[in-house]
C-alpha cells in the first residue's frame, strides 16, 4: 500500500493542529503520485492538474475529520481516481472535438522525445482502455494497491476489479509482456 507511515501520521496530526510545514510535507509527499494517477486516467495535463488540486482541496477541508491513525494516501487517491473516472467518462460523453486529438497528441509527444524510456505503444495501449479500466491499472501498478483495496476504494466487487485488471493487462501485454502477479 502506498504512503502509510509514521512520518505521514505525524504530518497529518501536525496539519490538523495547524502546522503549515507538516501540511506542506503531506502535500509534497502525495502530489506527484496523485497528479500522475490523474494524468494516466484522463490523459490531459490541465484536467489532471485540476483533479489533483481539487482532491487536495477536498482533503484540506475535511482534514479535521480525518482519523490521523489511518493512512492519508488511500483517502486522497480514492478522491483523485474517482474524480478522474468521472471526468474521463464525461469527456467521452461530450464527444469533444479534441478528445481523440488529445490522446494522439500525447502519443506523438512521446514519439518526439528521444529520452523517453518507453515504447509509444504503452501509452497508446493505456489510452485504448476505458477510464474504468485505466483507473484499476493505475491503482494497481502506479499506486500499488491490492485488488481488495481497489475494490473497496471504487466500491466494486473484487471480481470486477480482477477482470478489469486482466483486460487492462491484456492490452499492455503486447507492449511489455504479461506481468507475473505475485
Amino acid at each position, binding site marked *: 500500500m502506498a504512503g502509510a507511515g509514521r512520518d505521514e501520521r505525524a504530518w497529518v496530526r501536525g496539519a490538523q493542529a495547524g502546522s503549515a510545514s507538516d501540511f506542506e510535507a503531506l502535500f509534497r509527499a502525495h502530489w506527484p503520485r496523485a497528479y500522475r494517477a490523474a494524468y494516466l486516467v484522463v490523459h490531459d495535463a*490541465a*484536467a489532471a492538474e485540476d483533479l*489533483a488540486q481539487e482532491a487536495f482541496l477536498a482533503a*484540506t477541508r475535511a482534514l479535521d475529520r480525518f482519523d490521523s491513525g489511518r493512512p492519508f494516501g488511500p483517502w486522497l487517491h480514492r478522491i483523485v481516481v474517482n*474524480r478522474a473516472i468521472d471526468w474521463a467518462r464525461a469527456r467521452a460523453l461530450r464527444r469533444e472535438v479534441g478528445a481523440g486529438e488529445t490522446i494522439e497528441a500525447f502519443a506523438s509527444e512521446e514519439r518526439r522525445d528521444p529520452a523517453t524510456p518507453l515504447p509509444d505503444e504503452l501509452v497508446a495501449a493505456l489510452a485504448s482502455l476505458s477510464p474504468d479500466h485505466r483507473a484499476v491499472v493505475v491503482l494497481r501498478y502506479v499506486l500499488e494497491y491490492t485488488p481488495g483495496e481497489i475494490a473497496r476504494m471504487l466500491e466494486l466487487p473484487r471480481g470486477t476489479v480482477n477482470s478489469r485488471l486482466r483486460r487492462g493487462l491484456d492490452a499492455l501485454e503486447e507492449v511489455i509482456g504479461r*506481468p*507475473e502477479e505475485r
Partner: protein
Amino acid sequence: MKASSVRDALIAVPVPDELEAQRRAWAVVRGAYAEREPAPRRGWQLRLVVAVAVLAALVAAALSPPGRSVGGWIHDRVAGEEPTEPALVRLPSAGQLLVVSEEGPWLVRPDGSARLLGSYEGASFSPNALFVVATRERQVVALEPDGDVRWRVTRPTPVADARWAPTPGFRVAYREGATLRVVVGDGTGDRLRAESVAPVAPAWRPGEGRTVLAYASTDGRVHVVEADGEQLWVADPGATPEQLVWSDDAARLLVVTTGLRHPLYTAGGQPAGALETPEGQDVLDASFAPGTRTIGYSLYAAESGQSSIVLAGERLQQGEGRFEDIVFSPNGRWLLTGWPEADQLLFIGLPGVRRLVTVPGVRREFDPGGLGATSFPRVAEWCCR
C-alpha cells in the same frame, strides 16, 4: 515480465509540466489550508462521556433482534468509513453562486461550501448579493444569506420569477398568475404593474437611475416600462418570447424566442440585429458576457439530443443532453453551465476553452441524504465582484 515492470513503465511515463503544476496547485492548496478554521478539539472527558454513551446504546440495541442490524451499521461506521469529501470544490473565480434545487436555493461561497436557504422554489440575488429574493407558492420572501427571512409578501395565488432591481435595489418585480407586480425593496408598497403577462421572468435594465424593466405579454410582445411610471416602448419579436436578457451597459435587450430569430433591441427600442439559430435547434439559455455585448448561449437539437455552448459565434462545448444554464463569473473569465445528463457542473475557462473544470455528483451535493433521483439543480446566478 513481472508486475514491477508494468509499474516501472507507468512511472516512467513523462507527465507534462509536473513541477509547474505542483507549484500552481500548492499555491491554491496552501491558501485553502491557511483559510480553514480547524474544528474545535473537544476534551478527552467529553469524548469519554460520548464513548460510554455510545457503548451503552450499542449494548442496549444489541439485546433486541433489530439491534443486530443497528449494531452492524454502527460497526461499519466506526470501523471503516472515511470522511466524506465535500463534492463542490472552490469556485474558480470570485463571487457566490445561487443554485436552486428541489430542496430550495443554495448559496455557494467561494470555498465551495453551500448553505440551503430554505424550502423555496425560485431565487435571485439582490444587486450586491446581500439578500436573496425567493418564492414559495403564494409568497415572495427576501432572505438574508443565513436563510433568515427579512420580509415576505403573501398573495392570494401562486407567485414566481421574483427579480431584484439593480443598484440601489429599490424594487422587486415578480409574477402572480398573469400579472406583473412590483414591491419596494423593503417589502412594502406591493402593487400591480401590468396584466396579461406571459410566463417569462421580468428583466430589470442594468444601471442606476430610472428603474426600468422588460416583460413579455400574453400576446407575444415585449414591453419596457418604468417601474413606477410610463411604458417606454413595445416591440413584437416575431415569435413567442421565452427569455429577456439585458447587456451590462443596458444598450441591448436580447429576446430569446421559440423561433429561429432572437431579436436585439437598443435601450430605446430600436431593432439592433438578431441572434439567428439553425432550424431544429432551441436556445435553452442565453446571457451577455459581463461588460460586453457578446452573447453566450446554449443550443439544443432535439433530433440528435445534442447541446452546444456558443460564445461569440464559437462553439465552446458540445455534448449529449442539455446544457441548461449560461452563467458567467462576475469577471467574465468563466462560463458555468449545468449538465444534467452527466450530473455535472462545467466551469469553462475563457477565452476559448482555456481550462475546463468539472464538478461531478451535483444532484447528490444539492440533495444531501437523498436518493439521487431528484431533478438537476439550476444555476441561477454568479454574483458579485
